[in-house]
């Protein structure tokens, strides 16, 4: 197995450990860029929410809190299966790794399905800016802005989910091709980091869009 690991060290690296540390560092920096990418939207949303608290509260009241909560549970569960997948890669359990990757992807698909159902409901409610938007109450343009940010941010998040499922498909294929071992599983660990990041973004989106109307 040691030979197997040594053959996977790319020529620019001196040791397998150097390679693993470097690749992991690269992944963390990439996640930092993602934080800044979403961060711009979070800032803009927060600014407008402060400008128009009533309108944004009214928009939030149209959210389906039940579906949103279910999705949150689904996604956090998928992070759990992903973390277990990384662990099973670490201990070299290939079959369990494959099973957990499939489970994670399925949970991701459930999330996207629920999300699409919600989008369809908003469409039926005429709450889809630029396609079909009607709002009878005051501050209609500001309520519309809430929905612009809702579709923009959850849409961008869903796009990241789709990419994540694609990444996991590649990881699954490589798992079945016996590319990973207890000595070398960096790609699994990095996919896990990405998946958890996307999950965390959702937790913030959930709080911003679904919970702000609920003043307890």
């Amino acid at each position, binding site marked *: 197995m040691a030979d197997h690991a040594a053959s996977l060290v790319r020529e*620019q*690296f001196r040791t397998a450990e150097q390679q693993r540390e*470097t690749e992991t560092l*690269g992944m963390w920096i*990439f996640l930092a860029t*993602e934080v800044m990418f979403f961060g711009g939207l979070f*800032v803009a949303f927060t600014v*407008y929410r402060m400008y128009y608290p009533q309108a944004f509260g009214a928009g939030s009241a149209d959210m389906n809190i039940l579906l949103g909560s279910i999705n949150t549970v689904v996604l956090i569960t998928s992070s759990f299966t992903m973390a277990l997948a990384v662990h099973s890669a670490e201990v070299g359990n290939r079959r369990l790794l494959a099973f957990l990757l499939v489970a994670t992807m399925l949970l991701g698909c459930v999330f996207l399905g629920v999300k699409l159902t919600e989008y369809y409901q908003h469409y039926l409610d005429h709450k889809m800016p630029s396609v079909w938007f009607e709002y009878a109450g005051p501050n209609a343009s500001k309520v519309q*802005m809430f929905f612009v940010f809702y579709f*923009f941010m959850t849409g961008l998040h869903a796009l990241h989910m789709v990419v994540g499922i694609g990444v996991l498909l590649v990881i699954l294929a490589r798992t079945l091709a016996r590319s990973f071992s207890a000595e070398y599983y960096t790609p699994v660990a990095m996919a896990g980091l990405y998946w958890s990041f996307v999950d965390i973004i959702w937790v913030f989106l959930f709080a911003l869009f679904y919970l702000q109307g609920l003043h307890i």
Partner: protein
Amino acid sequence: MASQVLAQTATNYLTDKQGILSWLLTTDHKRIGLLYTASITGFFFVGGFFAVLMRLHLLTPRGALFGPETYNKLFTMHGIIMVWFFLIPSIPSTLGNFLIPMMIGAKDLAFPKLNLASWYVFMLGGLVTLVALVRGGVDTGWTFYTPFSTTYSTTYVVGAALGIFIAGFSSIMTGINFIATIHRMRAPGLTWFRLPIFIWSHYATSLILVLATPVLAITLLMVGVERIFQVGIFDPALGGDPVLFQHMFWFYSHPAVYVMILPAMAVVSEIIPVFSRRPMFGYTAVAYSSMAIAVVGFLVWGHHLFVAGESVYSALAFSFLSYLVAIPSAIKVFNWTATMVKGSISWDTPMLYAIGFLGLFTIGGMTGLFLAALGVDVHVTDTYFVVAHFHYIMVGGAVMAYLGGVHYWWPKITGKMYPEGLARLSALIVFLGFNLTFFPQFVLGYLGMPRRYAAYPDEFQFLHVLSTAGASILGVGYVLPLCYLIWAWKYGKDAGPNPWRATGLEWQTSSPPPAHNFDVTPIVTGPAYDFEGMKEELNLG
């Protein structure tokens, strides 16, 4: 001083593999650096062409050549191409790409495929922008201010923004690659405080690239969404706030100025010690000042909004922080100057460019303080004073340093010396042409000539003619190096591994370097710029 191990292999990175595919599919950081060099040289002359048209147009007060709509497109495309397709990638993607692994004694960057991908992404972004340009251009200015860009402009805003959006990912890829490489790939013994300043400055640059570029990406995406779907994000008619756009745009675009100038400082920091035969004075302060510029540079964006309706308290804070960022810049200038004191100075071409940089950067930086002062800024904002100020930084600073760096490392890149006399002459032409172009613009701006106008009052004509005359001289100064550097690649004298008797690791291998840079991984035992140690070694040897 590093143990000197010259490569004995017969082939180098240029001759190792042959054929066009060996270039298009290469993962060698040196070849990718050259791909970038060719690309950005092309973009530089496209952007320069727009500048030439503008300067010709401004020869007469009513404008000699174009209508105002065309003029708007000219300065927009000049700005977009020069900022995103020349200045941002200029030194990091060419010299940085070529030199960072060699300077730290590594075989390549940490992620060679990502490096190649960054070039393709960059070219794709450039292509999309050029298509937008050919199909009719953009007239918003390179700053894309809303609501003009999102609602009123009838030009190809989305196409141009998409091109910049795509190119941004190449910046991010480069930044990630550099940070991971500098952290993890250094040769044994090469501790942080033995690194050349070039590496420190590129590390600081990369931090800005990875933290600021995503904000530009999301901002342009918001502009695109607003424009395509006709919904309110920044449009005040729909409850949006155009000033929010300016905040988000400048959160990237001010640090982006440091992406342009920090690598220029990196180059100058390598040239000055070698041609003064003295180690960098105040090495630690210079290294930390790069980091200080990167950090404080993130906190000054609001000085672009002094007249945009920003609150007076924000303006005060941003004014103060803008003064603060001048301190690390000044630390560098003083230390470069102190490095030269009692040095044994030789006036080779790279040194001429470096000294030119010192003067012009100082003028650009000092006039930046005028603009950071709240009262003065109100008087000169949106005038040619601003134009002159940032051209002193970007052209007088970044482009001068880029040219200096290209001359300094040309013997390493190609293995051949360029014609020294001609090179010194063109350095002089660039310096004179630059000052004649842009110094009159300080005066014009102070007298009240607004920027981005296609016509002007008669009394400004003399200064505009001076500026155009300078631009034509500057053009000669840029075309000359293009010709003789290519000529030298084929016909120049062999340079040998270390023509400047420099200390960096990149000079310890042959010129051009072998495909894997070093035959044996070097081991570093002393500080950077150790000319004394080098002398002793030569005496012993």
